[in-house]
């Protein structure tokens, strides 16, 4: 299986990279366009004979409009709801596009809806439909063991469409062990090739500029020679004051950027994927076997710490499950590709837990205490000492899905740090996140906001408006 840290990174941040590329490209377009528009400025740097100027301007204008169109396209692309992101944050904990999990497989599910509107209603509040006695709804409800689907009243029609579009277009990642593609390859390569395309276009355009400039330069020189006007002595590039100055400034800016960036990222460890003392696969447990996160991380709803389970929690199941039988469908491998024997790892767990699989009982000391030793996990998510983070606030109150910060943990054999855990990353979410304002009676004291919501003056209250971006929410 092609699965290493590098690809993990690619997979985890494909979406982000795509967005970044888009932003960068937009920036490039903008600056290019504005540079061209200020034609006069250009002529200062690129001496063009007067006679050629009109033609040159026409060329420039067309280039400008080309970039402007590109830019506009970009914006429209950004404005459309991102089906994948929405799917991941809202649906992925219960649904898989292709496989049935807690809920049905979602691919082409919209084709089974009685109507598009029915689909919107169902997704926003299925319980209401069931309560209203809608036949289709009741059938689905009964089919899935009367497990109610979480209501998503905040999703707009466009967003639901985007999600459905995403799941319909979703293709299964290539089969594991297939070599090159790999399960970890993640989502469509389209985004990557997009970036590639833009880079190529940009580079070739730049080449074009240079070629035009050199050609123009040569033409002028030969024209001068022809007219008998003495040419200025040509200065080699490396001695050109302009070039030296620009290069120096560029180096200064780049090294400064690099230095500051390095300093800012000091202590951050996104994609950190250490080797753990025991090979525990979240994919096997949370993904394939669908164990609820909270079963082991019971603190997530109660405490600031999500809590790493002690080995006796593992033993609740592993007293019965003595060997790993899924090696055929899902062979366990480390990031380096080394094969891992799941059954051996279960035996290792027994050692930590103090379980004697032959006796089928714990080893105990003379006082009857279980002789267990804690597993010394390597801590992946490290926050600085001056940061206070509370899982309960996010999981229980904010109803944030684990995956939003921890990534597709149910797809990870070995866990890596998905999010940068930087302050900017936290703040960004706090800035946009809508508070479950009307559902929680705690917020009843914010009378003005409630009035404004009622009168339609506002549609939502964000975390930031309730002070979610203040220092002492996290630093005290």
């Amino acid at each position, binding site marked *: 299986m092609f699965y290493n840290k590098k690809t993990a990174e690619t997979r985890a941040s494909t979406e982000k990279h795509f967005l970044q590329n888009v932003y960068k490209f937009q920036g490039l377009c903008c600056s290019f366009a504005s540079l061209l528009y200020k034609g006069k400025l250009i002529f200062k740097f690129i001496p063009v004979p007067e006679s050629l100027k009109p033609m040159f301007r026409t060329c420039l204008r067309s280039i400008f409009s080309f970039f402007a169109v590109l830019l506009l396209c970009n914006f429209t692309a950004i404005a459309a709801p991102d089906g994948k992101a929405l799917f991941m944050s809202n649906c992925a904990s219960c649904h898989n596009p292709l496989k049935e999990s807690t809920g049905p497989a979602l691919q082409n599910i919209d084709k089974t809806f009685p109507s598009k509107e029915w689909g919107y209603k169902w997704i926003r509040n299925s319980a209401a439909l069931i309560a209203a006695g809608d036949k289709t709804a009741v059938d689905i409800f009964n089919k899935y063991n009367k497990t109610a689907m979480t209501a998503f009243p905040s999703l707009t029609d466009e967003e639901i469409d985007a999600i459905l579009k995403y799941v319909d277009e979703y293709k299964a990642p290539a089969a594991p062990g297939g070599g090159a593609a790999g399960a970890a390859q993640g989502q469509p390569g389209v985004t990557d090739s997009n970036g590639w395309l833009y880079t190529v276009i940009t580079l070739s355009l730049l080449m074009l500029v240079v070629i035009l400039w050199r050609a123009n330069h040569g033409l002028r020189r030969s024209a001068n020679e022809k007219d008998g006007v003495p040419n200025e002595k040509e200065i080699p590039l490396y001695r050109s004051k302009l070039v030296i100055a620009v290069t120096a400034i560029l180096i200064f800016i780049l090294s400064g950027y690099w230095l500051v960036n*390095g*300093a800012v990222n*000091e*202590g951050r*460890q996104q994609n950190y994927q*250490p080797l753990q003392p025991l090979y525990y696969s979240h994919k096997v447990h949370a993904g394939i076997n669908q164990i609820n996160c909270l079963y082991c991380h*019971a*603190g997530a709803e*109660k*405490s*600031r*710490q999500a*809590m*790493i*389970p*002690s*080995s*006796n*929690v593992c033993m609740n199941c592993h007293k019965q499950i003595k060997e790993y039988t899924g090696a055929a469908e899902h062979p366990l491998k480390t990031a380096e590709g080394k094969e891992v024997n799941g059954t051996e790892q279960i035996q290792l767990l027994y050692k*930590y837990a*103090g379980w004697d699989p032959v006796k089928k009982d714990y080893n105990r000391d003379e006082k009857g*205490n*279980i002789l*267990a*030793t*804690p*597993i*010394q*996990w*390597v*801590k992946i998510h*490290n926050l*600085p*000492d*001056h940061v*206070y983070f*509370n899982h*309960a*606030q996010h999981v*229980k*109150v904010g109803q944030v899905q684990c995956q939003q910060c921890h990534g597709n943990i149910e797809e990870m054999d070995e866990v890596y740090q998905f999010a940068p855990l930087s302050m900017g990353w936290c703040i960004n979410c706090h800035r946009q996140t809508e508070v479950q304002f009307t*559902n*929680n*009676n*705690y*917020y*009843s*004291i*914010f*009378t*003005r*906001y409630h009035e404004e919501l009622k009168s339609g003056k506002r549609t939502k209250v964000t975390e930031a408006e*309730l*002070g979610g971006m*203040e*220092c*002492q*929410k996290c*630093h*005290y």
Partner: protein
Amino acid sequence: MSQKQYWSDLQDLSNIATKTEVAEHEFKEELPFDLSDSVFGANTPRRDFLKFLGFSTLAATIVSSCEMPVRKAIPYAIKPEDITPGVPNYYASTFIDGGDFCPIVIKTREGRPIKVEGNEMSSITKGGTSARVQASVLNLYDKARLRHPMADGKEATFEAIDRVVKEGLASKQAYLLTCSILSPSTTEVVAQFIAKYPNVKHVVYDAISYSGMLQANEASYGKRTLPTYHFDKAATIVSLGADFLGTWLSPVEFSKGYSHGRKISAKNPVLSKHYQVESIHTITGAAADDRATCRPSEMGLVAVALYNAVVNGTAPSLASANLNKLITAAAADLKKGNGMVVCGSNDVHVQIVINAINDKIGANGVTVNWVTTSNYRQGVDKDMTDLVTAMESGQVGTIMMHGVNPAYDYVDSKKFVAALSKVPVTVSFAERMDETAQKCKYIIPDHHYLESWGDAEPKPNYFTLMQPGIAPLFKTRAVQDSLMAWMDAGQTYAEYWKLYWTTRLSGQANFDKALQDGVIEPAGEMANGALAFAGNIGEAIAAVQAKKAGTGVEIVVYQKVAIGHGGAWSNNPWLLEMPDPITRAVWDNYLCVSPKRAKELDAELTGFTEIETKKRVASIKGANGVTIAMPVIVVPGMHNDVVAIATGYGRDKMVGRAAASDATKGGKNAYPFTAYNGLTVDYFSPVTVTKTAEQYEVAILQTHSSYEARPVVHEFTLEEFKKDPKALQKERGSEIGHYAQVPWIEEGKEAHHEGGEHIANPEMEDGYREHGTLYPNHPYEGLKWGMSIDLNTCTGCGACVIGCMAENNISVVGKYHALRSHEMHWLRIDRYFSGNPDDGDTIQTVFQPMLCQHCDNAPCENVCPVSATNHSTEGLNQMAYNRCIGTKYCANNCPYKVRHFNWMDWNGADAFADNLFEDGRRDDINDDLTRMVLNPDVTVRSRGVMEKCSFCVQRLQEAKLTAKKAGRPLIDGEVKTACQQSCPSNSITFGNVNDKESEIYKLRKEEQQERTFYVLEHIHTLPNINYLSKIRNTSEIIAGNEKKDVMYTDHI
């Protein structure tokens, strides 16, 4: 400006130059490099700058190029069912230190106690705590605690010691010497032990003896016990030298009761009347309405004079006119009923006179309860002297000592040590190597109370249970377990204790409930009743009058509120650094003298001021030949012929590093100045004081932050308040009223208002908030935190200071840095005197807790160049440490002087190891053991940042989260700040001001509107803390020396 002039220290009244200098140079640190007038004219500033730049760049590079450390996340091997990491657990228990008692709730995180709070279910202390109770959790993690049993100074096993002791017990006369024992089950164990070994005698010895009272009560009522005092029911309280709010008997209980009678509002302007006669200046004296001083040897005569005035109406004829006046007035008030007289004297005859007065005024059964008595102290001095005599004569074969340290605090410790050497088997249960344990052959260290099972019966039928918050940290054993091992009981004390209580409470369910509550109390109000006085008053008066009052200088041995009698408290850095409420000095004891006496000693107003840290050292020679040299501290309000030294200092270095007395800190032992009068120990004796040429530095924190004499406290007499409750609001109105309207609207009307009065009211406050500034007004949605502090009930006891330290991981800086104004307390209690310093009787003292005022228009926020301090939507003045670059602009601009700069890495939070002091020394708090006390929810600050009160934001956040999880609004009173929770006199109210139903809202806008004021309100800082004016139930507020008050005339 109120009618009264206050001075925070004597320099306010006289020597202005040094004071101004100190006020101007708040940060008197010198820069670490040469800096002359012009930076570029200096010798090498540029090069130095480059050097520092180079070094810091290099250091940063090296540090950052280090690899990220691999951190471990280790879960429980087997998770205890009731522990969720990150969620605190609370266990009801009981604080016991000898006879000191307080029902508590232990807060544990991941199984380690980190904070102690009062148990609100107790009807005795009602959730109050003291500084010592708050600090007791630090003692648990004291490095100086003994970690294993010892024999002859070497580690030994319990079994080996048990064998030897059992042999010893079987032979000669043996003694079990303990402090007062409140535990009924322990008393039972001792009784069984004595039944098994009939040659064992149990002697009770208290470091600070209440033998005089016990014996007097036996003589008067036939019961060797102490009554319960109902301060809440007393309309007149007369205290003769009893510091009942600070150190006497049960201060937490008394503070709760006392504050009940000190709560006053305009609607109900009733106040108890408190007369205090004392020799030194205590916090009880500061709270008193009328106060007079006398010699300690005169206290008996004062009691007799009061008796005569009450019974016969005889006018007192004591030397001091003030005293006579006070006694006449007090006697008149006592006769009105609901009176109470308490006395701190340890003289049997004096206490009989007090009993007689209480009997005559009908206090018994009303304010003095003889049915539900108190067990706080049981020691009788004669038993102890008899024991020492027996030991001296070689009759004693074995002595076992628990909770006592006579080698340090006995009246004649040398004699005790000599006698101890004649005892073959000496066993100590001391938890540390104290002065007595050092002299013992065997030491079996006892658990700390937070590791122990136990119980207490402070009053008959009032029980509290004690349960451990943590398993014993070291190889220690409970005293009871030792006794039970020696009598071959075959079970542990924990088992015995559980059986004892399940049987007594008849059933497991009842036991579980009691253990959860921590208290077992009879239903309804406490049974009250009187006993017939049967004392021989004539004989007592004769005996008192036979003792003539002294003539020369007398010394008083007193307890500090923080350190008390000594014991483990002497090694508690939190308490050592808690400023004494009256002297505001830390880390030392000293000789307290009155300003007049100090002038004679050439110590005061001659350069040896409170600002000048070097103090004149005086030599004190006691009647028994003891001579010690002590620095002189001037305390206004002391009797001119009295000097005083506090107990608990001058400890041996093995008691602990913080306690150790050396040339630079730690003070001297005061117990040698106590005297045995044949019946009881007197805590005073005649001395001669002579000045020496020596000097000694004492750190006094009062002068470290100056208001430059701006008025910050408001005080009225009860009479004035009743006559014109709005006086304060008028005063406020005249200051802020003009700014409460938009000027251009008022322009025409202003003339109309001329001569009229502005009376501050909530609308005016709102107007002032909005129009007193050019900036827009910020609305506060939902939550807005506010605090109110009642100056009338605040006694200055310091429980809040220590509560704050424990909650917020506040650093202890040590004496050297305290001298350099580096103290870190987020909450301090300012002390203001008024009156004539030369006449101790005229001194009136006010305490004002001062913490970050969380100003809505905060001067500190505007000047921070990096916006590290800013305002929250809940009205909190936030401090982001990790953003602070340490410019100290905020501290300079804070008018309240509540910001403290962190000069050193006090808590070992720095990335560089051993970066603490210049010499690489690391303090105990850097030890892994001591660090267990830190609150994991609060950042441990490193050096280079500003710190200040956060309104316990971690508690606010936790309470909000609890409410959110439950999907309900916050309940008023659900969240309490650490200071509020620790306060034994309910002086602090805290809550959401936006909630019109909240206590704080009602108090500010309705109930206490007349008394509400904000400190330095006129500068439009808009503080979120208000104070309630002090109302003294006295005929006059003694005016300060307005003429002499240079600061006042100069600045305003």
